[in-house]
């Protein structure tokens, strides 16, 4: 700032002197507009102390440092010592200090009376919550209640809720918004390798030669990962990027080969790439022999193992030319991508474009197929890596088993031994955990709408905006009717869900509580409590403890099942470590004390001295190959053993290519796809609180291809109405050739009635993962009114 003043003063002084000498005045209006000059990013000296922590937005898990002065968060900066994000951090994170102190934070419990939410005491609110759940369970059984959680809750909070509902109340109706974003990735890893979660890590970015990005707007949804890819490419000109995405996202700028399939038809591309790889003998027979088997599902629904030759025979239906006919991508580009992929080392990164589909699991399987047939696996830079949208979808929900078909650390409801193990650890009576899966997200909210679910608690998420076919499920939550189910929403802000709830409980958020976030590369990071929640806000953990105690007092949950065991998140962490022992997720070497010192640790980690695992299944790196039930002394360093797989092998699946649930048709001739912008996150209840982020992207919009705009007679700035079979929105047009003709794109963040795009999206889901198809539905487009 001083530089600017001094330099401009000199400039102005010189001009004044010249003017005087010339005998004329220097009218102010003729002066050149002052230009901002080089400025250093000022050090944030006002912070008296700095603490390491972790960002709370996407699954990248950026390490941050928080500046605290007199108990107040005054600044945030990237943590240069963080091993994977290296000081990088995005705008959403940088504005967290403003977001946290937003004046509309919820500060008092509220109870709906005569249709309006009114302030209440915690005692009144929690008594009502416990009474309503007790009534429902006593009159309609344990399966009449449900928990809907989040990949934003702490790992300890999700684990506690899972423990309470499955082992305490006796219902598996535990699900959460990771079902909307991650379930197909879980299904992909599990069906291919036997267990969930990536085997590689962000370290692979520094070794990959080929990046295969599929359905991932990495530049906006995971900007720090994108920055690391950019850095890798800028320093290594031979690094190449393949992008598969029907929309030309900002990633397209740095792409070497761009494949833009018709939305919903990318499976043909992946099969065609596999065809080219085998046809041109670019596959790795030795790797396949050691580590892969081929499997199809026959007409009777039975799994049948087949040979590599039979697999190739199957792929003949997907030659690049045949694939091109269905997906709209030229065969030459498919061949080019296949050759690049096989060259490697290849790191695949994908996100919602692959997962939010009715063929999401199949699509995930086909990416794994490419890695397995080429041996692009278990070597530096060679790995299939699913990106995650929430900070704790991996560690908090997937790993703790807080979905309706899972139990902690790779266990599943359907397995009697797994149920027995958890009942023993939890101290629940034998048989308390039911053998049938609970309701997944969509079915859970359907059951709420049919009044089969009588009471539901929703924590740290906003289904009133984030569910597809939102009108239907907003009615389920909030429409007044006789015997309407009882809905509790725990949140830090007013949302499109709190407005529907019967009780709203004010939550402490990020940095106002202590707990663990587990991000995409299996790294668990401890977030410290550094500031206090405003007003009467409490952590979700404390709310769940209170709730559990009241259910114990009412005889719904066995006395002391929760209340005698845990007071803090650190208490329950000890049990979580124990639950992971001798599983493929073993993190028994990750004590709380160690986590306070280190910047996250990647499991498996069996003792306090192990540094954490960069690559799973690789001897010399993965400690589970040295010790415990998966140990193998016959392996040499660098050898691979997929110890969670079928006979220690991964499965190459022969999956059919299927159409999306609702392709465009005569009545609804456009395909709608939804996605994100960099400055906002999910339902934007947080990011809209920072004025700069709001101003950067203040209004919903729809991208329309210029050819379509011409036909429709619309131009940039016009309001257009998008209508599907479920609902409509009216938003402003951006005419831009990012989409294919016949496709429109609307970001998912805006919550105003006219812009809430999930009123339009479809709730059809993948039968394997139960994840809805946000990415493809049919709409009609017409000029709208402002």
């Amino acid at each position, binding site marked *: 700032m001083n530089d600017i003043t001094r330099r401009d003063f000199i400039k102005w002084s010189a001009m004044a002197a010249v003017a005087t000498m010339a005998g004329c005045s220097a009218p102010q209006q003729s002066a050149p507009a002052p230009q901002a000059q080089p*400025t250093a*990013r000022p050090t944030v000296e006002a912070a008296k102390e700095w603490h390491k922590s972790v960002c709370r937005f996407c699954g990248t898990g950026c390490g941050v440092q928080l500046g605290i002065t007199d108990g107040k968060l005054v600044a945030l900066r990237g943590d240069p010592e963080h091993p994977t994000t290296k000081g990088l951090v995005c705008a959403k994170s940088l504005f967290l200090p*403003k977001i946290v102190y937003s004046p509309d934070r919820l500060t008092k419990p509220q109870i709906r009376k005569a249709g309006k939410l009114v302030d209440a005491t915690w005692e009144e609110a929690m008594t009502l919550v416990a009474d309503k759940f007790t009534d429902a369970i006593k009159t309609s059984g344990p399966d009449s209640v449900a928990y809907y959680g989040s990949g934003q809750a702490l790992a300890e909070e999700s684990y506690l809720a899972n423990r309470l509902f499955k082992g305490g109340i006796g219902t598996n109706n535990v699900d959460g918004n990771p079902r909307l974003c991650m379930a197909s990735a879980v299904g992909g890893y599990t069906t291919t390798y036997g267990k969930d979660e990536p085997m590689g890590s962000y370290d692979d970015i520094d070794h990959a030669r080929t990046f295969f990005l599929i359905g991932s707007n990495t530049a906006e949804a995971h900007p720090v990962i994108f920055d690391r890819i950019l850095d890798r490419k800028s320093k290594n000109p031979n690094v190449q990027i393949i992008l598969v995405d029907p929309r030309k996202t*900002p990633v397209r700028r740095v792409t070497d080969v761009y494949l833009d399939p018709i939305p919903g038809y990318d499976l043909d591309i992946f099969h065609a790439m596999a065809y080219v790889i085998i046809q041109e003998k670019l596959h790795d027979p030795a790797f396949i022999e050691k580590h892969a088997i081929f499997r199809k599902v026959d007409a009777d629904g039975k799994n049948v193992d087949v040979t590599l030759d039979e697999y190739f025979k199957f792929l003949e239906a997907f030659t690049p030319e045949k694939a091109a006919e269905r997906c709209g991508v030229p065969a030459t580009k498919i061949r080019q991508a296949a050759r690049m992929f096989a060259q490697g080392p290849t790191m695949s990164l994908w996100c919602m474009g692959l997962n939010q589909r009715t063929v999401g699991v199949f699509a995930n399987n086909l990416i794994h197929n490419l890695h397995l047939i080429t041996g692009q696996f278990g070597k530096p830079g060679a790995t299939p890596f699913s990106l995650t949208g929430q900070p704790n979808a991996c560690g908090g929900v997937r790993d703790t088993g807080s979905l309706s078909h899972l139990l902690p650390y790779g266990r599943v409801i359907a397995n009697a031994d797994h149920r027995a193990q958890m009942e023993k650890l939890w101290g629940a009576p034998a048989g308390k955990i039911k053998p049938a899966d609970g309701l997944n997200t969509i079915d859970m909210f359907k059951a709420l709408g049919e009044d089969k679910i009588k009471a539901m608690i929703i924590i740290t998420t906003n289904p009133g905006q984030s569910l597809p076919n939102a009108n239907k499920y907003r009615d389920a939550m909030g429409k007044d009717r006789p015997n309407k189910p009882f809905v509790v929403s725990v949140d830090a802000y007013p949302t499109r869900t709190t407005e529907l709830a019967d009780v709203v409980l004010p939550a402490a958020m990020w940095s106002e509580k202590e707990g663990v976030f587990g991000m995409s590369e299996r790294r668990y990071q401890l977030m410290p409590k550094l500031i206090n929640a405003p007003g009467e806000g409490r952590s979700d953990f404390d709310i769940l403890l209170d709730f559990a105690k009241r259910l114990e007092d009412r005889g719904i949950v066995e006395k002391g099942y929760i209340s005698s065991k845990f007071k803090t998140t650190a208490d329950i962490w000890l049990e979580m470590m124990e639950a992971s022992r001798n599983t493929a997720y073993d993190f028994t070497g990750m004590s709380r004390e160690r986590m306070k010192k280190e910047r996250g640790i990647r499991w498996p980690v069996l003792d306090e001295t192990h540094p954490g695992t960069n690559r799973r299944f690789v001897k010399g790196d993965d400690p589970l190959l040295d010790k415990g039930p998966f140990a193998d002394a016959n392996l040499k360093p660098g050898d691979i053993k997929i110890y969670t797989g079928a006979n220690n092998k991964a499965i190459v699946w022969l999956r059919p290519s299927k159409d999306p649930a609702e392709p465009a048709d005569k009545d609804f001739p456009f395909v709608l796809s939804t996605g994100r912008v960099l400055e906002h996150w999910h339902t934007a209840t947080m990011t809209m609180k920072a004025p*700069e982020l709001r101003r950067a992207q203040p209004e919903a919009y729809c991208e329309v291809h210029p050819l379509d705009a011409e036909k429709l007679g619309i131009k940039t700035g016009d309001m257009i109405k998008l209508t599907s079979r479920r609902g409509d929105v009216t938003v402003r047009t951006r005419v831009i050739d990012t989409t294919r003709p016949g496709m429109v794109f609307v970001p998912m963040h805006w919550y105003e009635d006219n812009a809430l795009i999930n009123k339009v999206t479809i709730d059809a889901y993948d039968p394997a993962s139960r994840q809805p198809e946000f990415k493809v539905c049919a709409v009609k487009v017409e000029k709208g009114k402002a």
Partner: protein
Amino acid sequence: MKRFLFLSLGLLALLALTIACQPTKMPPPPTPQPTAIAVFEPTSSFAAGAFPPTIPIRQWHDNAWLITDCLGCHGKDTTGEAPKVVHKDLPDLYLNVNCRTCHVPQPPDQ
């Protein structure tokens, strides 16, 4: 008398010229464009420099995603008037990243 009148007129003209030759008003120190520097809210207790400089939306920044070479104007060694990138205390990695990662665009009236 004539000489006196000439002299007087001459003096008056000289005085007028002298006055005219003075700058009517010293221009005020320029005010930096608020959107081009670190946002500081004096009414808050956030630390100065806690938030990254924003990108003023001007003709050349209309779609910052399309700008692939921010350092062409903002690089340390460039000579134009654009603010030069100085990432004090941040790793060099920051010079290879997408500027929009941290710097958000702002409409002209902000």
